[in-house]
């Protein structure tokens, strides 16, 4: 047998064969996630990460996507805009084809323009600022904008609670201001009279002067924006100071940490949110139950919204049959009536979702269904 070149190559291939990867194990599909894992918003970052990990685990347990497993690539943005752009470029450099924001508006707005420019699908899980999806057609959002949620609160207070005199206590950032703007824009439509409006900074935990002012205003209901770490102390101090008017909060209070801080003062507080704890829809029930058994802690809005965003990305990858960014983008944009942990969603031309708003009430130290605001005209997301 003479050693011709083809035979040599064959022999080399045969020797090399045991070291080559088996054909069955296709490389994982990697999904990027950035969330505030350290810094002031670390609590929400932890929830976002857990929601995303659960979504990936559920998809992989069901066989993955297109015969490949999903893998989460996680970066910490500290909820800071200046961290967002370097980490977005890092994601792009490592060849990721789809990225999720499990973070606040400031870093998400900054990163959105980077991903749009690179034409990589980018889904904001719960950041509410309207400019995020305006970055372009590769940017999507799986929660309400602040304005839409504020409008839902106004309709709830005006029609279901049937109260008229409202005092607003607004968190002075993107989140709080967009909620208040939406609320004010339709307050007249539901006969609401805004008695007074106070604002506070995200670092503030002492609300004595606002409590004294609310007592003087004597409103029939309070509409309060904020996060659990501002809302918990605020609600505690309002009740401690003798304010008895009903309190309507926002999805920032949608976590059991809020109840852990405010305790008895949390009883009866109502919130507008995306997650219905008493939902009977299978994806919602499965999310709520598996989250609780996996992490030994009850699910919250941030976890549910991030779970939704990752689920949407996985479904788009499956429908596209490839991880080609342009095809994945088209698959997300084409989603209609897709059932996820936060309800039944559909995307509009701006990449915003249409869905109903949930009103939950805290009773017996737990969130329960109180009402659903399903008004496609009022809750229509922005289209441009």
């Amino acid at each position, binding site marked *: 047998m003479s050693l011709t070149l083809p035979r040599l190559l064959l022999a080399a291939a045969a020797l090399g064969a045991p070291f080559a990867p088996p054909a069955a194990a296709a490389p994982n599909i990697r999904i990027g996630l950035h969330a505030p894992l350290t810094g002031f918003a*670390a609590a929400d970052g932890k929830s976002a990460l857990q929601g995303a990990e659960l979504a990936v685990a559920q998809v992989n347990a069901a066989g993955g996507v297109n015969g490949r497993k999903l893998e989460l690539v996680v970066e910490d943005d500290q909820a800071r805009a200046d961290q967002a752009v370097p980490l977005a470029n890092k994601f792009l450099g490592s060849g990721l084809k789809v990225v999720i924001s499990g973070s606040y508006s400031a870093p998400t707005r900054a990163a959105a323009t980077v991903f749009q420019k690179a034409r990589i699908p980018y889904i904001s899980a719960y950041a509410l600022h309207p400019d995020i999806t305006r970055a372009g057609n590769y940017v999507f959002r799986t929660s309400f904008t602040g304005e839409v949620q504020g409008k839902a609160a106004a309709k709830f207070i005006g029609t279901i609670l049937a109260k008229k005199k409202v005092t607003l206590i607004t968190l002075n950032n993107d989140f709080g201001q967009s909620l208040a703007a939406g609320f004010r824009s339709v307050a007249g439509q539901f006969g609401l009279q805004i008695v007074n409006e106070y604002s506070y900074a995200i670092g503030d935990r002492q609300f004595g002067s606002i409590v*004294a002012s609310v007592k003087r205003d004597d409103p029939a209901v309070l509409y309060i924006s904020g996060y659990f770490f501002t809302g918990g102390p605020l609600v505690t101090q309002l009740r401690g100071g003798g304010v008895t008017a009903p309190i309507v909060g926002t999805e920032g209070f949608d976590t059991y940490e809020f109840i*852990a*801080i405010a305790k008895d003062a949390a009883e009866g507080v109502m919130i507008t949110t995306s997650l219905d704890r008493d939902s009977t829809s299978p994806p919602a029930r499965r999310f709520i139950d598996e989250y609780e058994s996996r992490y030994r802690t009850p699910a919250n809005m941030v976890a549910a919204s991030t779970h939704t965003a990752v689920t949407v990305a996985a479904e788009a990858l499956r429908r596209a049959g490839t991880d080609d960014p342009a095809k994945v983008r088209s698959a997300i944009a084409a989603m209609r009536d897709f059932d996820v942990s936060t309800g039944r969603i559909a995307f509009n031309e701006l990449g915003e979702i249409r869905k109903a708003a949930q009103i939950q009430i805290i009773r017996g130290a737990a969130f329960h269904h109180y009402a659903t605001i399903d008004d496609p005209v009022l809750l229509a997301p922005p289209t441009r």
Partner: protein
Amino acid sequence: MYYVELLLVGLVWGCTYALIALGVTLVYGLLRILHVAHATVFTLGAYVGVLTANHFGSLAAAFVAAALVAGALGPAIYRLVYQPILDRPPYVALIASIGVVVAMEDGFRLVFGPYGESFSRGTALTATYAVGGMIVSLVQVCIVVTALVLLAAFSLFATRTRAGVAWRATVSDPAMAASFGVGVRGVRYLCFLIASALAGIAGVLVGLLNGLIEPGMGSVISYKCLAIIVLGGLGNVAGTLVASLMLGVVESYGTVFLDNVLDRDAIAFLFVIVVLLVRPQGLLGQRR
């Protein structure tokens, strides 16, 4: 009555500032170091207090434990962080101090979790009293009383005891004090011990007032304390007290009447800027 209530709210805030800023001003007076890391001593005191109170059901135990643990951390920061770099320019110590704040804040997050802690129902000073149309909580009363008693005790200590005289001598001239037999090292440890124990007690009180103890609760207070000690006239104890109370009252009115324009912290710093334009040496500082 509404305006009186706002005044009371402001005085309560001012008393919490005073308890914390006193430590910063004492350290500045003694070592010319801007002790920003005092905020982490305050936060640790709050955590020790809430965990003790929730575990043993006793607020008294919480205050004692907070004062002890915080009282140990302050001298430890002095020994491990400041003492090795005392011969360097003051900004070196300031940078080290900021480093301690950053490291400790995420340290608290790792040890105690990101969500924060609050007092259980049974242990909190939640009782309230209706006084002439106002509702005053026991916590507010406790903050004012504690601040006044502790600051009065400190002033007695500084003026009427041997250790206090030694401390004041060291502040004005360490070399001269040492030559008269004052143990300068001992005075410095004592200063950090007293300042830190007060900060620990303040941590528990602020935790009760806020209803939440969290890893970053010291960060706003730390830079506000710097503003207060500048406002009071650097190193001036009486000036610090006056500046703390004034700042609390300005913030109380400002958060209601200026909140559309400026937030609470911005109001505080605007106030400081305005005062310093008029009195560059601080409220009670002496013109040099």
